[in-house]
């Protein structure tokens, strides 16, 4: 059984078919890439998986059970976390607080105890903070824990997005253009980080990326979308030489 399986996933916005009959399956432990030109429907695919949109037709299965129609917070609880293409941090919260928000989905102490400031709520707060702090160490953000997230440099904001998504302890991590806007050095660092995360946390990663060097180096399987249609699927070598992909996206020189 695949970890994530899309079968004929389709969504229409009026006359526009943003994602048209897309099928692929992500196995446990995969480093899976989703590429294609702008407007190909990659982010829409993420939105379908995470419950932001409900597919018009087709099915999306996670660990064998149907996902479509599940609200985003339930999807996160089931074990799928994501980052956003245009960074969406909780800007006025600190770096640590951003991560604690995501770790909070495993809270066990009910709200009234917190309103009364009972020891159980204090202990839980400490526990979640400690968990979040460990993740910040992994992503090398621990020294900035008390900084307002909006005040972080751009590359760190991207890393914080990943830390925050990981705090939900997902089985499947969706990264939406994690290397966008990064310089080559930053993007190389990120490459190592993503590999490390996958090994140390036994996570499956599905990522959207335009940086071909990044994708080809990192991913073991790739799906290519164009105008909402899936045009190719396979390992990097196949994709690099696939005539349709070259025509639609990569161009001759790659």
């Amino acid at each position, binding site marked *: 059984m695949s970890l994530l399986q899309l079968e004929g996933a389709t969504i229409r916005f009026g006359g526009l078919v943003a994602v048209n009959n897309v099928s692929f399956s992500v196995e446990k432990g995969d480093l899976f890439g989703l590429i294609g030109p702008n407007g190909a429907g990659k982010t829409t695919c993420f939105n379908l998986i*995470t419950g*932001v949109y409900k597919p018009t037709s087709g099915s999306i299965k996670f660990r064998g059970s149907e996902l479509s129609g599940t*609200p*985003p*917070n339930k999807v*996160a*609880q089931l074990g799928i*976390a*994501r980052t*956003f293409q245009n960074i*969406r*941090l*909780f*800007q*006025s*919260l600190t770096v640590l*607080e951003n991560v*604690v*928000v*995501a*770790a*909070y*989905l495993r*809270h066990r*102490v009910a*709200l009234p105890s*917190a*309103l*009364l*400031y009972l*020891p159980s*709520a*204090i202990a*839980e*707060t400490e526990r*979640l*903070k400690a968990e979040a702090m460990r993740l910040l160490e992994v992503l090398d953000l621990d020294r900035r824990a008390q900084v307002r997230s909006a005040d972080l440099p751009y590359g760190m904001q991207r890393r914080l997005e990943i830390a*925050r*998504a990981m*705090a*939900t302890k997902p089985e499947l991590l969706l990264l939406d253009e994690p290397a966008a806007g990064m310089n080559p050095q930053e993007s190389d660092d990120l490459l190592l980080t993503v590999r490390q995360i996958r090994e140390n946390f036994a996570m499956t990663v599905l990522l959207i990326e335009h940086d071909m060097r990044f994708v080809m180096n990192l991913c073991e399987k790739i799906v290519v979308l164009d105008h909402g249609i899936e045009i190719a699927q396979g390992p990097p070598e196949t994709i690099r030489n696939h005539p349709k992909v070259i025509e639609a996206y990569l161009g001759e020189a790659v």
Partner: protein
Amino acid sequence: MYWPVRLASILAAVGGCFLLDALARGVDDYARRLIVLAGIWVILSVSLNLINGITGQFSIGHAAFWQVGAYTAGYLSVTFHGKWGIDGLPWMILMMALGALMAAVAGLIVGLPSLRLRGDYLAIVTLGFGEIIRIVVQNQKPLGEAYGMNVQPKFQTVWLVWLMAIVCIAVCRNLLRTAHGLPFLAVREDEVAAGAMGVNVTQVKVTAFLIGSAFAGVAGALLAHYEGFISPQMFKMEQSFIILTMVVLGGTGSITGATIAAVALFYLPERLRDAPPVTGAALLGGLIGTIVAVVLVKRTVDRFHGPKIGAATRYIGSVVAGIVLSLALGAGFGMIPKLASQSFEAEKLRMVIFAGVLIILMLIRPQGILGTNEFSLDWVKSLLRKRKAVEA
């Protein structure tokens, strides 16, 4: 160390309320009434801050929840008091609980549309809801229609009002100092991202409305039993706006800011009633002096980036310059017989001055008195530390 500290702070809060009560016995009825009403405004402002400032749901119908609480307590007291065999404080507690419950139900009704509406649209719905409540009440015979209703028994204590204000502040503060407050802030910051991180946005919004409106209901029950009279006129749209102003002025999301702003905004216009009449000359001089001072302060805010101590000297300088200019101009205009002979009563000017102060504050400090900070020893210390860092 947890329980000793906890018990000590609870005792201190209760003791402080009784001390305030004892002190308030020494002043006249009018002054005591102001102390009580200030406490009620603190509850309203801090509870709206939970909905508006902390959770970011722009609600401007808070007076409606206040009214629901007041009329629930009022009506039940008039109808059932003396029949259930309880009186005094227990009765008052029961009325507060039922007022809170009914207001929370109303909060739920408004909270539900907020799940689909954002920003301005939610504001319009809450505004409309507030008016609907007021007009529905105004047309009910058992509730005294537009004349209002007398509430018996009265329960006039300073301590209970301020104890409730402290409870309201404590609940909000406890929320923010545990991890449980973070989902509320996350919803304010970015609903989509919050949802993607597993925050149940629906539940958070409804909870904020429930708690916030319940406290407004408590404030209503307290008001009804203190004044002994309630009418729809007391809960007009303007009241909602004043509560909102308190929240914004205090610094959106800041609990201490909401508290300070509530007391200040309530006291200022009340105290201006007693001010002596002013002559046209003094008024004109004061106006020009104020404008000059505001312009000078605003220039420092916008353009001065040096050390804090330099900024502070400039602020003080600007204010002193404004005062000196006001006095000088006032004396100068006093030479003109027409201006000197005209006299304006403070009673008529007070709302103008109130509005003027609001405009000035929003010009100089749009983020509110405290911004998103809380007033605490740590915050003051951090300010001092920053100053030292800049000086070094």
